[in-house]
């Protein structure tokens, strides 16, 4: 049985109006949950660790996370080296927070790396919620970091802290602007939002 994610989605060339309404990422569920638990296993001590990994499509057609690495939100970088016959699809990372453990959607730099790395699928796991960016025919080929940051920050007004709802509104706006499909949900039931 091939991946539950349609081939057209994984191609990175799906017309935006042909994206499916839902995605099933259950084949990656165990691995995503394992890395999330590792992210928060020292939460009692006030320590969280961000994990990242590379999503590949294996020869058998299934998706898999490889090359898991850890760090903090400013230095964790996926190791996107892949070897044949694995094919690079995109990246996965976690967003743990020490203060409230609320789900936190994509950051402005996540959008930048999804565009610059030509990720077909970019996944984020935060407090049992999975967020997904899907590259389409309309996705930008390049991006100006300062422009994207300016637009991202415009959603926060004068509030110093990043509020999840404001980040989510910024995600929807950036997904429309840069031509991504944006999904949110659990590992096996993600609904398309944009």
């Amino acid at each position, binding site marked *: 049985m091939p991946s539950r994610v349609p081939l057209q989605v994984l191609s990175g060339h799906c017309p935006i109006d042909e994206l499916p309404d839902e995605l099933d990422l259950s084949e990656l569920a165990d691995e995503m949950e394992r890395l999330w638990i590792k992210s928060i296993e020292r939460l009692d001590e006030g320590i969280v660790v961000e994990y990242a990994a590379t999503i590949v499509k294996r020869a058998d057609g299934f998706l898999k996370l490889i090359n898991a690495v850890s760090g903090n939100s400013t230095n964790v970088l996926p190791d996107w080296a892949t070897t044949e016959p694995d094919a690079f699809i995109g990246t996965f990372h976690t967003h743990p927070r020490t203060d*409230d*453990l*609320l*789900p936190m959607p994509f950051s402005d730099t996540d959008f930048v790396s999804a565009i610059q790395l030509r990720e077909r699928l970019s996944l984020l796991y935060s407090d049992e*919620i999975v967020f997904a960016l899907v590259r389409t025919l309309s996705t930008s080929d390049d991006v100006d970091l300062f422009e994207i940051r300016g637009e991202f920050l415009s959603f926060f007004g004068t509030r110093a802290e990043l*509020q*999840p*709802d404001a980040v*989510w509104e910024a995600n929807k706006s950036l997904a429309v602007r840069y031509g991504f499909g944006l999904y*949110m*949900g*659990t590992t096996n*039931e993600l*609904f398309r939002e944009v």
Partner: protein
Amino acid sequence: MDNPNPILGLKDETWLNALIEEVKARRTALGIVEKPEPPLFVRKFRNRLEERKAKQLQLSRTFLALFEPMNSNGFRAVCPTIENCTVEAPTREEAKTALIGEIKQRLRARLQAGETLPTERGSAEMVEVALGE
């Protein structure tokens, strides 16, 4: 002149707010940290998920399925509730999958035609018939 013994109005919730604050303070002192309410977008997603599950449940039906091995190998599966609903497949499992597909297709057609869907609420039972008596 103010009433020296004011009656506490039903809408006066100062006592309740004070109590909530006191409980919060005690819990904090005990090291109990409450998780804040999920963001609005997560609450909306969870509501959507619940609605979908409720809808799926509403759309599910139970039917009796009968299986019999065929002389020419393979299995025949029949749903007696639906007229002429019979499928054949090499294995019992495949016959079951094919029967579910057939029932689904037939029910969808009836639903689109505005008909009421049949359902099976009873349960099957094997009864022994003694012919010698």
